[in-house]
């Protein structure tokens, strides 16, 4: 009898453990390598302890490598990933291809209406949310308060491009390796073209008119590019055509730039005394305008989406609800402090006095994000979605090719007119090959 019980008990234990193992589901999550995502990876024990039947496998990549991998996988229905980190560029394109699962089942306490409207709009197609924002960013002006004070200039909260250019020229002292302004120059659709497209918006420029005709032959682009090239020649650092985010970050942190207009996420780096020599001297203002009603700030969000090829949708939804929900923000705040919570996604965060106190750049980030409208990015109407990009599959190729022309103009290898002429030809040719205007 005793023996029977033992055998029965052992069998039950084995059966239970097998059932547990069979029920355990592994989610493969593809993410980009940035501070907020790495923090999420470190805090994921909180999710697995609440969901013991789910284990997590992480694939962390540099964003361009990740984009290539996940695009190949989703386009071929490879099914290697259950949760993908994608940006506001991919969401409208992929959702229209039915490659993504709409996120309408994230739970009753998810508070989807708390997501900042501009970000939600950028991640939705036909009113349906296809990716949940993990963090959001815009761009803004970061400047050195000490240098401005020394030059007797006061930075307004909402500067114009003419003010920024005058101040940059006044502060520049090339003999001391001090440059008035640092801007992106490295060619790439996500590098110089992110900045220049957003800058062009403030000058009234647009990539395409309503019938998808390229617009680089219009006066607004000539004004934009001439202004940029002249300003960088007079007040920018040498070799600016090789500078992207990281190069300008290094220049600003080492005290060589008086102004830097770039992603709002940079604010936490330049104010970090461990990494920045000028941490206590940094002020923030909106990205500049020219009085036409649009500022030169962009809108980006890294968001979590579920590919239609996964067969673990329910677990993936649970994970996304955890990682992008309000409770995750509280979890980060309790473990790592309010300054380290992922910014730019939820209205409630900016109403939280603890966050506003811990992050001096919070208000400027919120204002910058609010001012960006992905459906009406520039002064004139456009047929596309996207502030600093055009959400069509052809854009990565065209954007980088045009970026190379503009980088050549900045480096002095081509005139502004020649660069614009080439940009127009490249864009017209690719769009014609792709069958635009679509009927």
């Amino acid at each position, binding site marked *: 009898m005793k023996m029977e019980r033992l055998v029965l008990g052992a069998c039950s234990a084995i059966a239970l453990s097998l059932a547990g193992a069979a029920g355990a589901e592994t989610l*493969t999550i*593809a993410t*980009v*390598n*940035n*501070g907020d995502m*790495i923090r999420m*990876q*470190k805090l994921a024990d909180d999710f697995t302890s609440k969901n013991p039947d789910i284990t997590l*496998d*992480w*694939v*962390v*990549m*540099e*964003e*361009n*490598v990740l984009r*290539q*991998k996940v695009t*190949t*996988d989703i386009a*071929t*229905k*490879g*099914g*290697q*990933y259950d949760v993908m980190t994608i940006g506001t560029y991919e969401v409208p394109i992929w959702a229209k291809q039915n490659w993504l699962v709409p996120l309408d089942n994230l739970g009753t306490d998810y508070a989807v209406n708390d997501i900042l409207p501009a970000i939600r709009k950028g991640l939705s197609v036909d009113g349906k949310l296809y990716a949940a924002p993990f963090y959001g960013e815009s761009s803004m002006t970061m400047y050195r308060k000490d240098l401005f004070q020394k030059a007797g200039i006061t930075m307004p909260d909402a500067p114009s491009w003419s003010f920024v250019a005058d101040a940059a020229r006044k502060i520049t002292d090339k003999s001391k390796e001090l440059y008035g302004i640092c801007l992106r120059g490295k060619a790439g659709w*996500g*590098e110089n073209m992110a900045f220049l497209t957003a800058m062009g918006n403030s000058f009234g420029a647009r990539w395409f008119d309503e019938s998808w005709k390229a617009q680089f032959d219009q006066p607004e682009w000539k004004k934009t590019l001439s202004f940029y090239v002249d300003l960088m020649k007079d007040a920018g650092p040498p070799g600016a055509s090789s500078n*992207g*985010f*990281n190069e300008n*970050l*290094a220049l600003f*942190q*080492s005290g060589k730039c008086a102004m830097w207009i770039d*992603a709002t*996420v*940079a604010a936490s*780096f330049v104010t970090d005394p*461990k*990494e*920045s020599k000028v941490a206590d001297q940094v002020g923030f203002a909106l990205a500049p305008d020219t009085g036409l009603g649009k500022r030169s700030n962009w809108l980006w969000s890294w968001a979590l989406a579920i590919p239609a090829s996964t067969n673990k949708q329910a677990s993936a939804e649970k994970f996304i609800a955890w990682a992008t929900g309000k409770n995750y923000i509280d979890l980060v705040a309790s473990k790592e402090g309010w300054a380290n919570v992922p910014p730019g996604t939820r209205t409630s965060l900016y109403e939280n006095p603890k966050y506003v106190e811990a992050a001096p750049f919070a208000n400027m980030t919120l204002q910058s994000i609010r001012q960006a409208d992905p459906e009406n990015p520039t002064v004139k109407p456009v047929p596309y979605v996207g502030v600093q990009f055009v959400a069509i599959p052809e854009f990565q190729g065209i954007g980088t090719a045009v970026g190379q022309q503009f980088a050549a103009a900045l480096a002095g290898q081509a005139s502004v007119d020649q660069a614009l002429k080439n940009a127009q030809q490249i864009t017209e040719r690719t769009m014609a090959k792709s069958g635009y205007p679509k009927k």
Partner: protein
Amino acid sequence: MARAVSTRRMLVLTAIGWTIGLVLFFPIVWTILTSFKTEGEAIASPPSFLFFNWTLENYAEVQSRSNYLKHVMNSVVISLGSTALALAIAIPAAWAMAFSPTRHTKDVLMWMLSTKMLPPVGVLIPIYLMFRDTGLLDTRLGLVIVMTLINLPIVVWMLYTYFKEIPADILEAARMDGASLRNEILFVLAPMAVPGIASTVLLNIILAWNEAFWTLNLTAANAAPLTAFIASYSSPEGLFWAKLSAASTLAIAPILIMGWFSQKQLVRGLTFGAVK
């Protein structure tokens, strides 16, 4: 007098040799040094060579974020597996082409080499689809097959070149003594071609170890080797040089140590038959 000139010449040649060696090795030294700096010091201008606050925090960060040993194991299995498979195919192929050539042998060799001229991305989608349908995505076996196929032309070419240096008369003598084909290859050809085979093995391991296009595109969480491990430490937004350097140092360490111990074989193999 002649001895003095010769000594001076030796000194100059030694100095030139050391200079070239140090210049070539400098990027690796710099990577190792950067891995012990903070992110702020890694981008400091002007950079400091030795006088900085040495820290192990980047290694600690890399250890806490990644499963280094899993990536090492994947790299070892993929590079050794693909080398073994490539040798098993290439030795008979090179033997046939070296000792029983036909009028098409040269064309076949050129055709094999021409497959290396196609940019890999051109066949990414077909291979990805084949792997998806055969369940080979994100598996070591899949990568062993791909690495074998992409390195096979080089392995065949190298072995063919070495085998050509071995006099056919020796093999003929073995055959006259009654050696079977298997014994001829295993006990006559292989021992004489050991330096050539050894250097081919080493080169193939290094090529498979460093390959980054296929290993990045065909893997996710399970079979990702050290190339994917390094790629996860680069970022377009944020400082990453010190952590990337620590990851790179850890990734190149095994192959560097292996190369160090086997350099004698490698040099002997690469110069095999160079001087007659």
